[in-house]
Structure formats: structure tokens, C-alpha cells
């Protein structure tokens, strides 16, 4: 581990990283724009310049070199001594920030980025207090560069992060710098908009409010948002995210750095995959069939009803379909309930939506074809709980033969998932409990319809495609009328008190040791990237 000295402070850092990264990881705030640990180094913003001790060519003694060095371009070397707290470094920071402000529009009152803007923060900390600019500012247009993204060119600081992202991470290269010098702009080629499955990341990467997400435009001030640590259910990779929300609900989703899974990026599917939470046709009240009609029921009535009906049937004719949209804890509790009342009930891993092939991007980012977060978790739990277990298609084949008297089917998918053949098979089950988000083709045959909560309204863990168990917190309270799934399953399984995912995991860990520890990504300081 190289040991370097920054501003007189000795720091042990990782090998093979630039001094800037070492400083940021040690908690020092060094202003920078163009550097990003996930992208190539261009050293073009010239804001991160530092002083470096080098041997004097005549005496061999270490002296402060008479020029500044980009800290993003200089790799750490054991014994290196640098400093950022010096006249020359501070003067350069002031000048560079003044240069950025020369043509920057006074858009803070209407700019989405306010509150999380690198320019605001750095100018306040390191920049000039007054403006000396009395000339006409260079004006640039606002551009619509893609289906999801706007570019307000006059705010752009030409750090080229977005260009490098599209070249290196997405591999599509839609964004380019055009023109030269102070006329330089970011733009797309005519007829080739910014449209790749990772394009939303350029909005996060942009240090100022130049690249904007159309969905978040003018929506909410970021200091009025709170953030929950969550895991995206968009695919089986388990991309970790921040859900930014307030009392009005979810406002946006951002990537949460994860050194093992998605690093600094998320797919657009993960980023925009929360609108379905607010669909107007969300199921809101438990319904119990009474003759031809479904009548509203109270949550408190359900456990007794279900217990009676599931215990009443022969246990080999009882089944439960555990959706891969459920968390591990919820699946565990539901399995516990079903096997409690029907020890030889069939447990099924629910329908696994697969769309196309895995998409692998140049630097290793993967969008999985499997569009559910927890298939491996469900399978692990089923294996631990023990046979009889089977797959969804096999279960449907048995159901259509009339093999079951009672079944508990959990859905929870963002898209419609009930195919006509599945509806036909499930219709054969006399006592069908469906725990789902939206109305479906099962509505005609369902006996008890229970409204589910989406992942953002629940807490728990997902096991990703590589076996990594990642926890997610609740962001928003469940919509009115809905009891979160974990709480309901806990009551079904006879547990008293509030559902707490951590406690359930402790219980699970006694028989499944892998659940003793979950993977929480390393927290990075703000502005570290």
C-alpha cells in the first residue's frame, strides 16, 4: 500500500490510483470536474492541479516543483509528497472557477442541479467572491438530444465526461464535442440522438445542470428530497440505487456506487422503472369472493381465513407460488406459513420474465435478460425449506390437471404477467389467493385478492444473479390501504409485532448461513465522483 503525504498528512492509499482519487478517498475535498474514477483521464479542466515535491536537478534535494501538476494524471507513488493548501494551488482554483463563471448563465434559480451542483459548491468554497466579467456572455442553445435528455449548452463546462461515458462505458458514442475553443459545444449527430440503454447516467455525470433528465425537469428541488438506499428490481443484477423521495412520493432514482455490481452506473430500465408504482389501477383493498362478486375485506380478517382454508385442504393439494419479485425475507415467511399449515405443500418459484439476451457493454457493465431481482434468492430459500418444490411451468401443467385445491400466488411484477394459458390453469384452483399489484386476467377466478406493495414501499434483501445478498430500505410508505407484504406474511406466519427484515434474516441465518451477512457497498463521500 503506497504511503503518500498530502498537505502534511500521511495517507495510506490503494495502488494504481491517481493522487486525486487517493485524496478523495481520504475524505479531502479537492475540486475537480473532468476526472471520474470510472472514465479515462483527460486532465482538461485543470482544476485539480497540485504542487508536487520533485528532486532538484542540480542538488538532488526534494523541493516543490516550480509548476503545478494535475492530481488526476499523477499516479500515487510510495513516498510522494504533494500539497493542495498553497498559494499557487488556491490561486489556480480561483482563476479556473472564475473562468467557468465568465459565460455561465445566472440560471441557479431555475436550474435543476442547484443544491447538488459542483460549480455552486466549488465556487463557494474555492472561487472568487466577485465577478469581473462585464462583456457579453457567449450564448448557447438549449438542445433536445434524446428521448430522455436535454442539453442546456450554455451551462456546460466542457468537462467531456458525457462524451467519454458514451464512448467508453456505453460504447455508442452519440455525444461529441463540436466546434473549437470557446465556441465548443456538446452535440449529437443529426438523426442519431442520445439513445442507448445507459444514457441516463450522463445526467448524473454532468457536474453542472447542462444535461437534464426530462422526467425530472423542474420537478423538485434536491434539498427537499430524502434518499433511501435501495436495490433496483429491474433486472437480476441487483443494481444499487438511491431513491430520492419526499412527502409527495418518489421523484427520481440515481445510482448508488457499488464496487461489486454496477459501480457508478445504472441502466435506464432501473432509472426510470418506478413509474408503475403510481399507476392509477393499483390494487388498494383486499377483496374476498362472495358468490359472483368480490367484496372488500379487512386486513385483520385475512390471516384466519387463509389459515383455515389452507389447513383445511389435503396438504399435497396446496401450493404457493413465490414470485422472484419478493424479497428473501418475505419469501421465507410465506414459505414458513404455507409449510406450517400444509407440510407437504408444493412451493414454486414464480414466473421469471426474460427479455432478449444479456447486454454486455465495453467496460463490463451488464444488463441482464432476466428482469426480476430475486430468482436466486427464491431458489435458495426453496432449496433450504426442502421439497416438494418445482418450477412455474411445471406447476401450471399440474394445475391445469386440477391437482390443487388451494394456492397462494404472489405476483408483484411491473408488467402484465398472466398469460391466457396461465389464467386458464389457475382458474382450475378452487381457492386461489392472488397477491399482486395490478388487476389481471385472474380477477374472474380469484378467491382472495390481496394488494401488494412495490419494492420501494418495502424493505428486505434481494439475492442477485451472482449470489450477492443486498439489502434495500423502504423509501415511501405503502400507498393508502396497502399493508406491506412483509408485515402481512409475518402475521400469517404467526409472528407478533412489526415486521423487521433484519430480525427475519437472523432467523434465516440459523439454517442458511449465507444470510448472516449482507453486502453493503462502500459509501463514497459526496463529490467523490
Amino acid at each position, binding site marked *: 500500500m503506497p504511503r503518500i503525504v498530502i498537505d502534511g498528512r500521511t495517507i495510506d492509499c490503494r495502488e494504481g490510483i491517481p493522487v486525486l482519487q487517493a485524496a478523495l478517498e481520504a475524505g479531502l475535498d479537492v475540486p475537480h470536474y473532468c476526472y471520474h474514477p470510472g472514465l479515462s483521464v483527460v486532465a*482538461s479542466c485543470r482544476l485539480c492541479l497540485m504542487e508536487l515535491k520533485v528532486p532538484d536537478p542540480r542538488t538532488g534535494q526534494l523541493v516543490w516543483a516550480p509548476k*503545478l501538476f494535475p492530481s488526476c494524471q499523477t499516479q500515487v507513488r510510495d513516498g510522494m509528497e504533494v500539497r493542495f493548501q498553497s498559494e499557487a494551488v488556491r*490561486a489556480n482554483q480561483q482563476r479556473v472557477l472564475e*473562468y467557468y463563471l*465568465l459565460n455561465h448563465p445566472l440560471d441557479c434559480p431555475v436550474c435543476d442541479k442547484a443544491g447538488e451542483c459542483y460549480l455552486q459548491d466549488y465556487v463557494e468554497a474555492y472561487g472568487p467572491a466577485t465577478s*469581473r466579467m462585464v462583456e457579453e456572455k457567449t450564448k448557447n442553445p438549449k438542445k433536445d438530444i434524446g428521448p430522455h435528455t436535454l442539453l442546456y449548452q450554455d451551462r456546460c463546462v466542457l468537462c467531456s465526461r458525457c462524451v467519454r461515458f458514451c464512448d467508453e462505458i456505453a460504447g455508442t458514442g452519440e455525444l461529441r*464535442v463540436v466546434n473549437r*475553443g470557446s465556441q*465548443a459545444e456538446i452535440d449529437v449527430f443529426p438523426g442519431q440522438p442520445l439513445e442507448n440503454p445507459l444514457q441516463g447516467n450522463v445526467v448524473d455525470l454532468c457536474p453542472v445542470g447542462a444535461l437534464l433528465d426530462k422526467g425530472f425537469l423542474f420537478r423538485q428541488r434536491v434539498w427537499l428530497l430524502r434518499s433511501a438506499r435501495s436495490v433496483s428490481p429491474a433486472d437480476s443484477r441487483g443494481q444499487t440505487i438511491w431513491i430520492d423521495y419526499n412527502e409527495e412520493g418518489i421523484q427520481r432514482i440515481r445510482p448508488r456506487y457499488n464496487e461489486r455490481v454496477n459501480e457508478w452506473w445504472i441502466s435506464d430500465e432501473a432509472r426510470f422503472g418506478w413509474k408503475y408504482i403510481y399507476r392509477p389501477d393499483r390494487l388498494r383493498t383486499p377483496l374476498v369472493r362472495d358468490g359472483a362478486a368480490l367484496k372488500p375485506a379487512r386486513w385483520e380478517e385475512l390471516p384466519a381465513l387463509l389459515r383455515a382454508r389452507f389447513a383445511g385442504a389435503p396438504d399435497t393439494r396446496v401450493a404457493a407460488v413465490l414470485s422472484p419479485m419478493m424479497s428473501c425475507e418475505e419469501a421465507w415467511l410465506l414459505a414458513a406459513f404455507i409449510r406450517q399449515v400444509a407440510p407437504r405443500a408444493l412451493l414454486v418459484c414464480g414466473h421469471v420474465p426474460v427479455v432478449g439476451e444479456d447486454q454486455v457493454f465495453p467496460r463490463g457493465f451488464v444488463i441482464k435478460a432476466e428482469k426480476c431481482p430475486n430468482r436466486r434468492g427464491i431458489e435458495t430459500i426453496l432449496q433450504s425449506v426442502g421439497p416438494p418444490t418445482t418450477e412455474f411451468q411445471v406447476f401450471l401443467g399440474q394445475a391445469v390437471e386440477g391437482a390443487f385445491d388451494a394456492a397462494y400466488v404472489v405476483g408483484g411484477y411491473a408488467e402484465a404477467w398472466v398469460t391466457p394459458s396461465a389464467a386458464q390453469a389457475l382458474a382450475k384452483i378452487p381457492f386461489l389467493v392472488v397477491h399482486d399489484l395490478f388487476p389481471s386476467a385472474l380477477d374472474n377466478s380469484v378467491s382472495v385478492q390481496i394488494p401488494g406493495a412495490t419494492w420501494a414501499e418495502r424493505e428486505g434483501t434481494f439475492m442477485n444473479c451472482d449470489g450477492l445478498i443486498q439489502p434495500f430500505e423502504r423509501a415511501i410508505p405503502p400507498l393508502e390501504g396497502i399493508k406491506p407484504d412483509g408485515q402481512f406474511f409475518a402475521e400469517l406466519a404467526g409472528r407478533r409485532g412489526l415486521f423487521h427484515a433484519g430480525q427475519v434474516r437472523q432467523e434465516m441465518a440459523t439454517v442458511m448461513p449465507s444470510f448472516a451477512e449482507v453486502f453493503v457497498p462502500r459509501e463514497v463521500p459526496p463529490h467523490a465522483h
Partner: protein
Amino acid sequence: MRFEPVLLKNLGVPGSTALETYRRSGGYEGAQRALKMSPEEVVELVKRANLRGRGGAGFPAGLKWSFLPKDRKVTYLCVNADESEPPTFCNRVLIENDPHMLLEGILIAGYATRATVAYIYIRGEFMEQFHILQRAVDEAYAAGYFGRNILGSGYDLECYIHRGAGAYICGEETGLIESLEGKRGWPRIKPPFPAVEGLFRQPTVVNNVETLACLPHILTRGLDWWLSLGTANSKGTKLYCISGPVNRPGCYEAPLGITCRELIYSPDFGGGMRGGRKVKAVFPGGLSMGVLRGDVFPKPPPGVVDPQQDFDELDCVLDFDDVRRYDLLGLGTAAAVVIPDDADIRDVLLNVARFYAHESCGQCTQCREGTAWMYKIARRIRQGAGRLVDLDILVETTRSMGMIPGLSICGLPDGAAWPIRTLVQKFRREFEERIAAQTPDAPVRHIRRTNPAAYPLPIFEGRAVHPPGGTFATPIDLAVEHGPTSGGVPVPGARSGARSK
């Protein structure tokens, strides 16, 4: 005593661009001699000749060649024919009149550096010159000077010409390499240096046209002859260009070490000023190197060289070293443009600032924004709405950019900073007089066109260095007056108040 031209020896000879004409006067003999030596011997020879680069930086060519890694498999030689430094045209004269001298130089340099391919990057505007050069390359191939087994030596060298598309920044070494690779001409961060990782990430050497044209003569006439020309550390012969209102604008050859006064006034060179004018200023090495005061100023006392005082500086010796005593960045391309006594110094400033603002590539913040800001200020000054503080801002901005203090990726901002700073500092008296001659509220009225709420604050007005009616005032040390950052970015490691050149 007129100097017998060496580089320009075929100028004016009919059919001088043809191979036959070139061979008749001893052409390609140097290459033949070189091919009989080992590549290392040729490098050693060029090192001992102290051939300093003629493209602007003056970096010794032999030393540059010796940076190539010993175990390299592929080497590229890039010939920088992107001559874009205003007001330089000596490479053009060489290419137009004696292209084979350049090609012979390429052959020698290629052999010395064991280059596999030579790329001549010629600026896009040189359309006629490109055709002349391409014809010469074709002749050279036909005669066996390029291609395989050149002159039976076993050495192979391919030579291609690539045309640029109108960017000054593509004359910068790594900007040229990026442009050759088909990308935007954005200079690369260094390290790695081109000698290690250049064109297509292979070891590369970039040399100027004139530097290469010197090689045949070093080989044919010998080291002693070369070392007998020039001054202590600037050896050999140089092409000097002179333009502006002189009687004989043009490109002339002389050993390194003529003075600026000779270049302007000698009948062998500029032949004096048209209409008997005097010289207000001269940029002796191309715009980027900075400006010298002319003979409208009084001569200094003997032996005194002080760029901070308003003295005639035309006795500056035009070699690589004496120029630095006059606060010039270097000799540059030794292309002089003369500003006559009846020129408005604000026009000069505007012209200079506009060039660099237009040509900045836009990567580095200081250069991109700084050159544009200086241009806008220069424009406003020219429009009669300047303020004294604008002069201070210009000087401070020039001290906050450049590759030399480590603030930028390439040398363009150094080239932008030097002429603007020297202009404002050396001609401060005239700038202040012009500003004093404006209507007093002109700046405020001008600024109110964009910002109706602007009003002048005395504290931000700046101070005159040369109050009207007074004598020479001691220049204000801004760094001491207003704090460290008001003088630009200070030299790291130096104490507060020390100014960086």
C-alpha cells in the same frame, strides 16, 4: 557582406522543384552519406551540431531523437508542415521552391530514427504547395529515395502527405498526431511523450520542415562548417521572415545571430521602413514569442537591457537565447512582423487576442475561457470603452494560463499569454493615454448595453502606471498591492510577491 544562401540556394533557379535540378546541384548527397553511417552515428552527429528545432520551441533535434526507446519495433517520423504561426512563411517558401531539400532531410532523419513511415502533415490551406510536394514525393519514390531498400542500403521508408483542415492547434506536436489519426486535434496529456507513445501509440518524432531541411547541409558541408555559423548556443543558418510596412518584406537566410535592427533595416533583409516611418513594435519570433519595443523609444544606456523600461529593444540578437533577456518566450519561428509608429497599439492587441481565441482548441479551461475573455476585453478597448483595470486583468489572465506553469496541456496558452502580456506591459503608456482620451463614461455606457444595472466602482477601476504629465513611474507590483491572486497564479514554491515570468 551578403551571406551565401544554403537553405535557399535553389530559390529562383528555374525548375527548382524538379528532382533533376536538385540533383544537379548536389542534391541527395547528404542522404547518401548518412546511409553509409549507422543510424546512431547520424543521431550523434546531429546532437553535436546542436541543431535546435526551427518550429518554435528550439528543442535540440538530436536530443529529441535520443528519447526514442532503444527496443522499439516501429517508429514514425512526423514532419510538421502545418506552418500556422502568424506571420511565418519560411516553410512555405522551402516547400514551394525546393521540396526535395525537405525530402532529403526526411530521408536522413528517418534513417537516423529508424523510422518506418514518414507522414508529412501539411496545412490544408497550402493547396498549391501540397501538389508541388506530392509531385516531389512521387519523383523521389521513382528515383528510389523512398520505398524499399533505399539506394541499396537496406533501409525502407514510406512517405505520405496528409493535409490538415485549418487549425493552428494541429501544429502542436500531439495535436498533429491526433489529427493524423483522424481525430479532433486536441493535444494529448503528457506523459506519455510522443517519443514513447505517439502516433498510433508507437514511438514518434515530430520535426519541423526547416529543421529537417538543415540536415542535408550538415552532412555535406560538415560539422565544422555548421558550428562556425551562429552564436554560442544557436548554431547554423536560419530562415528569417519579415513582414509589415518594410521595403522588402520576404524570407531571408542568415546565420543565427543577426539583430532585430539588422533584420528590419539592412538592405540585405527588410530594407528599412516604407515612407521613412519608425518602428513602434516588432514581434521578432512570430506572435507567440512576444513583442519588442521599436525605435520610437530612446536607446538605452550602453549595456542596459531592462524590459521594464521604455527603451528601444531592436538590438536584441535573434538567436535562441538573447531574446529571453528582453522578456520574449524564445526565438520561435524567427518570423518578424513590424508595427509602424502610426499604428494604434489597440489594433495590435485586438488582432493578437482574436487569433488565439479563435485557435484555442477548447480542452483546458484557462485557455478556452481565458483567450476568449482577453479577446472580448481587447475588443472593448478598441471600441473606446476600455478601463485601466482591464489592463491589469489582461496581465493577470496571461499569468494564469500556460503549459510552463503546468496550468494547461499544451503550449498555445503560453503563446497567447506572452504577446498579450508584453504588449500591455511594454506599451502601457500608450494604452493608458488612449484610455484617458476616451469620453469618461464610455466604459459604463458600453457595459450597460448588456447589463443595464452596471455602475462604476472606483475601487475596481485600476491605477495608472504612467500618470499623464509625469515621468517614468515605478511599475506597481500588483502581487504586493492586491494580494497573491491579483498577479495571476504565482510560481509554486516561491514566496508571496514573487512574480512568475
